[in-house]
């Protein structure tokens, strides 16, 4: 037997339509605020997440002595078959193109076949092309933003060295509003040294181990192929006890990098404010809508009371109605979000919406509907059963 609440929502659908619409639109607004914000923040760790690393090892202390020691004692760890220093070589640079100054983050990447601290999307062909000094591959985001073309030369600050664009990589790794700020370019260490000779840098030799350890912020490691990163991480952390070292997965590395960005980003706070209003304003409207829907049904509730149906059933009927309104709102907002996401993607703006985001937004929509339901409950008792006699 269909419940009274479900029958009511279906039968009086016009009454509930506005509540569902408001919920769906507010849900969509939250999706957009959270999705764009997440894509933006996530883009801060795009580079780290794209590296072909199984685990990162970081120093939990203030200096990098323990990391330097680790690099010289790799053989002591059976879960590490290769280790490379992560030197934080991605830094914003100003480049000049046709008298215009552009912002670009240039990352130096090793070009060897076995190198692990290199983005997965840099193919062998790209590495070969980058081995020619003075070449750079840039993200498609910058291609669109700065009108970069193949063959363009980007000059350094004193016009002493130019980088010729020899390719673009997929913008998918660098979407979000970050594209409006900066983007990535990849060069070989040799090219990096020629482009910016005054910048202190690590000098690499075979095996990717740096001679200049002082700038090491992290170590990327390759683990044996048949070992799970999670298990290797746990084993390494056991071994690292007392050594001020910590093994983390690339996902954790990405999250931590993004978290730093969240804490620094004013933009995120702006999105947060939008998110709060996206919940509060619709909540007010939904309360009014649900309340008027319940008031329209006041005779029903009075009849239920006259029949001796306990108040808890009246409350559960009203709350179930709110639940169904919320559930419909979740479904509609998800569909609308997919449409908005596709539309924004067409304009180069990504919304990063994971299943976790969907769960949280859905929970927020449902919570808003249920809160509105609770606030509307007073309307149930507006009409008294004896009023049915008049």
């Amino acid at each position: 037997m269909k419940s009274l609440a479900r029958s009511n929502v279906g039968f009086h659908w016009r009454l509930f339509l506005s509540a569902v619409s408001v919920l769906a639109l507010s849900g969509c607004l939250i999706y957009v605020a959270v999705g764009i914000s997440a894509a933006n923040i996530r883009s801060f760790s795009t580079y780290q997440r794209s590296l072909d690393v199984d685990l990162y090892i970081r120093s939990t202390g203030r200096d990098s002595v323990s990391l330097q020691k680790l690099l010289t004692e790799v053989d002591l760890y059976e879960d590490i078959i290769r280790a490379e220093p992560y030197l934080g070589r991605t830094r914003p640079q100003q480049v000049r193109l046709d008298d215009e100054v552009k912002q670009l983050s240039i990352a130096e990447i090793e070009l060897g076949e076995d190198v692990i601290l290199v983005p997965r999307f840099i193919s062998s062909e790209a590495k070969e092309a980058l081995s020619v000094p003075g070449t750079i591959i840039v993200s498609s985001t910058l291609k669109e933003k700065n009108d970069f073309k193949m063959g363009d030369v980007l000059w350094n600050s004193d016009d002493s060295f130019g980088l010729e664009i020899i390719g673009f990589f997929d913008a998918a790794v660098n979407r979000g509003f970050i594209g409006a700020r900066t983007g990535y370019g990849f060069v070989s260490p040799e090219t990096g040294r020629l482009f910016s000779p005054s910048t202190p840098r690590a000098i690499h030799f075979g095996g990717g181990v740096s001679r200049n350890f002082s700038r090491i912020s992290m170590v990327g490691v390759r683990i044996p192929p048949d070992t799970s990163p999670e298990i290797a991480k746990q084993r390494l952390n056991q071994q690292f006890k007392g050594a001020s070292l910590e093994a983390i997965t690339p996902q954790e590395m990405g999250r931590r990098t993004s978290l730093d960005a969240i804490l620094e980003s004013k933009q995120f706070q702006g999105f947060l404010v939008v998110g709060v209003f996206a919940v509060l304003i619709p909540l007010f409207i939904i309360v009014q809508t649900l309340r008027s829907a319940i008031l329209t049904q006041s005779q029903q509730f009075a009849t239920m009371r006259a029949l001796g149906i306990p108040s808890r059933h009246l409350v559960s009927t009203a709350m179930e109605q709110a639940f169904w309104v919320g559930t419909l709102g979740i479904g509609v907002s998800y569909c609308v979000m997919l449409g908005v996401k596709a539309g924004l993607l067409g304009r180069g703006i990504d919304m990063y919406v994971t299943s976790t985001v969907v769960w949280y937004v859905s929970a927020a929509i449902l919570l808003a509907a249920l809160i509105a339901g609770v606030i509307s409950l007073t309307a149930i008792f507006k009409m008294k059963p004896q009023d049915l006699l008049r």
Partner: protein
Amino acid sequence: MTSLAKQSPTTVAAIQTCGLGKVFGEGRQRVIALDDVSIELCSGQMTLLMGPSGSGKSSMIAALGGLQAPDTGQVIALGEDLWSRSSRKITRFRRDHCGFVFQSGGLFPALGARDQIALPLTFLGWSAAEAKRAACEALDWVGLADRQDSRPSEMSGGQNQRIAIARMLAKKPTLIFCDEPTSALDGKNGANIAELLKQAAARHNAMILCVTHDERLVPHADRILHIEDGRITSDSEEDKPYAANR
């Protein structure tokens, strides 16, 4: 005012009232709805409560049916003082013993006829299967077995009133209260409803108190009370000493 329960401890009446009073408003707005009403209503009898508008009929049915408390007096329903109970217990009393048929029908617009009857029974703790079976029996009894899925908007006023009666009878109440059950019906439908109510009284040995203006119900009644300005002015059972506070 004396306690009616003490006055007639052996009575088998379904409902007794003693000195019932109800006033609405204050000052110039003050309206006396019930004025020291003492009556006794018996099981198996269909009693009509007739009177002009504003005479106190609805207040009477509300007080006797556990819907609205009187200001003064007692209602002894099935041997217990109804209004001395807690609100929760009064709700339970209505649920367990009372059936109502309202002028408007009081049906749920979204539900089909069978669910109209079955759903309230599930709220009362019946299983869905029991509730459906009882609903089908009740529909059959009121002659609407073929309209199980029809919503109120898809049926006539007479049919809706029969559904309301079926809903009321499905839970086999001991006390039945009807408020103008035939006012919106034509002669034939009105007679049908009256006959159904009469049968219900006999079938369940229920007390029926029916508020009405409709003279067509008079031939079906076992007893007729007239009320005016909150006072019972006549009782067809003249030998009842408490029949009217004349």
